[in-house]
């Protein structure tokens, strides 16, 4: 069985293991929550994109745009730039689907990675750290809204179950690890910048990040082979 089909089949059979964070009680079961993410559709999307099927791209855009936009806006805090980054990601997927490395994940993780990397590149290239520092002043309020779970109607969003699992995994981190992880992963700061922002030694930042990501890896292990 091809990795793609195997992974999508696994997704269908998926049940939340005991050690993994459980979805919120009011969210649909994992096998159903991916509205529109049937195994057939997922496996066919990649094939159709590879075959230059424009409708497949339309479907992928419908599915992935909110997530990509969320990643890009969270990092760039600039809607126009975030849209540009998402545009670039889809253009790459459409024109260079052959670059997809299934060993590093599936289609949607690839899109997410492209988007995040592009956003990081922009952050670094445009030296937005000063603006970030200003936003950091209001970090507490932003952080609170960032961690707040969405209302149940949001679960209609394809992929919402994945979001909830990741969200639950993040919530399980102690605050001293969650803060640097947020800054590092979702806002694009480097380790030394995080040390400066949080006013803690660089070594401490490294340790907390390592511990935090180790926990996240363990928490996300059940879904690491999901492929879209």
């Amino acid at each position: 069985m091809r990795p793609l089909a195997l992974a999508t089949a696994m997704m269908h059979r998926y049940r939340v293991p005991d050690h993994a964070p459980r979805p919120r009680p009011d969210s649909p079961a994992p096998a159903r929550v991916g509205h529109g993410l049937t195994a057939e559709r997922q496996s066919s999307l990649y094939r159709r994109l590879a075959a230059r099927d424009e409708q497949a791209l339309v479907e992928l855009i419908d599915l992935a745009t909110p997530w990509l936009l969320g990643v890009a806006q969270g990092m760039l805090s600039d809607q126009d730039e975030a849209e540009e980054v998402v545009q670039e990601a889809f253009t790459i997927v459409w024109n260079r689907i052959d670059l997809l490395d299934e060993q590093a994940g599936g289609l949607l993780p690839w899109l997410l990675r492209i988007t995040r990397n592009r956003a990081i590149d922009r952050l670094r290239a445009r030296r937005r750290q000063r603006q970030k520092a200003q936003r950091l002043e209001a970090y507490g309020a932003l952080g609170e809204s960032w961690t707040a779970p969405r209302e149940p109607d949001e679960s209609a969003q394809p992929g919402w179950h994945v979001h909830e699992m990741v969200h639950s995994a993040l919530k399980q981190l102690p605050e001293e690890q969650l803060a640097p992880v947020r800054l590092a992963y979702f806002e694009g700061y480097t380790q030394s910048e995080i040390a400066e922002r949080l006013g803690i030694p660089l070594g401490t930042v490294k340790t907390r990040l390592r511990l935090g990501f180790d926990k996240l890896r363990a928490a996300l292990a059940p879904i690491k082979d999901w492929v879209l």
Partner: protein
Amino acid sequence: MNPHDWFVEHRVAFVVRNLEAAEEKSFQQHLPVCAECREETTRLARELAWLPMGAEPATPRPGFKRQLIERALHGRRRRWQWMVPALAAAGVLLALAVVAQERGRAGRLLAEKTSLQNQLDAIRDTLVIIRNANRVLQADIRMDGHDGGITIFADERTHRWNVVVHGLPAAQSNQVYQFWFITAGGMVRGAQLHLDETRPAFLTMGMPAEGGAVMGAALTLEPMDRPSSQPQGKQLAHLML
């Protein structure tokens, strides 16, 4: 702590791109030579592949998805769309270049045609004179071991002569062949001839306006530096009507 421990310690940071630019570059340079780090970073990337989904989804503004679709799909077409006018412009330039080249070629051909036409006209004229000549005067000329001659076809109806000189060597650098009309009033300078032994020289001329009636012709070899209204050099031929 050996040097490799640093890479082991920073694998996650590399995967999630938390390293400083210099550190990231160092790690990238390390990967091609370290299979263990390559495998581990691939594994870490896969384990954290869905982590970006922790970000809250953002509702796209109205029209953004349509924009995404159009730009992704038509990006390549746009290049073609950009190329179409470029190709059209290139085509126009090429056409202009061809036209210019053709114009140049046409100009050259026209000049060549004009030249050929002139030559043909001259030949026709010569033939007409020769054919219509009322008189033909001829003299042999022996000069410096060369046997040549001069022939005059006189068309008295049109008052034109056709003079043919052949077999004579080229004049020395300080000399020139000079044709003379012998008129009632004396010798009248005609045309200078630049002869080539290999081919005859043809000369068509009208009668001189001065000197009165033309009675004959002469060919001399005159010094170049002493032009005169009267022959001074060696006489090669003397013909009377």
